[in-house]
């Protein structure tokens, strides 16, 4: 049980670390305000669905 918890914490930490470094990496020029060309499907969980902006 302890091994499982430690293993989960280790994997989670790696993910958090990579997420942090990715978001600290500056965006290339001209990519500051990217919008998707997608007009939306039935998947309301998708972050590109324009229904979320309304």
């Amino acid at each position, binding site marked *: 049980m302890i*091994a*499982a918890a430690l*293993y*989960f914490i280790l*994997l*989670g930490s*790696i*993910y958090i670390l*990579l*997420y942090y*470094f*990715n978001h600290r*990496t*500056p*965006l*290339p*020029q*001209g*990519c500051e305000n*990217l*919008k*998707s*060309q*997608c*007009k939306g*499907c039935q*998947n309301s969980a*998708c*972050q*590109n669905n324009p229904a979320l902006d309304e």
Partner: protein
Amino acid sequence: MGDLFSLFIASVFIQNIILTQFLGMCPFMGVSRNSSSAIGMGGAVTFVIVASSLVTYGLYHGVLLPLNLAYMDLITFILVIASLVQLTEMIIKKVSPSLYKSLGVYLPLITTNCAVLHVALENINKGHDFAQMLTYSIAIPIGFTLVLYIFSTIRERLDVSKVPNALKGNPIALIVAGIMALAFSGLAGLV
């Protein structure tokens, strides 16, 4: 060697991840508007699938099985895939700004691309050895990229064609995808 070749051909054409298993449909519809984006997305998915398969296969056989933690396979695979997508996004930001511009908003979709998780799970469930795992993990994204590219070239032609108003956009794209699935099903007896 013959078995690996059969596995490769079957994974690319006969058991194509998009057209016969209907996985990875989100990028298939979202990033198929032009062929350069399709190739870029195919490359990114290929990198993530091959890297995640190598890491998850190693973790399953090297850590989870010896520690009797095999029940943690799903959470392990999800965290590995999510981490690799962050890494891929970081690399593309640094190496290819133009590719980031065309793929940027769609890159996080790779995390939720069930094709990636499918390959990691199938390598375990089917009991693949290392060579089979590597063949399967390379063949599946090649099939994904091939179909995505073919579909994007058709959609480029559709954009300049006269399509009835009721079928413009996603409806005609889904009809084309259905016809492509029928065409690929004709390869069923190949191997």
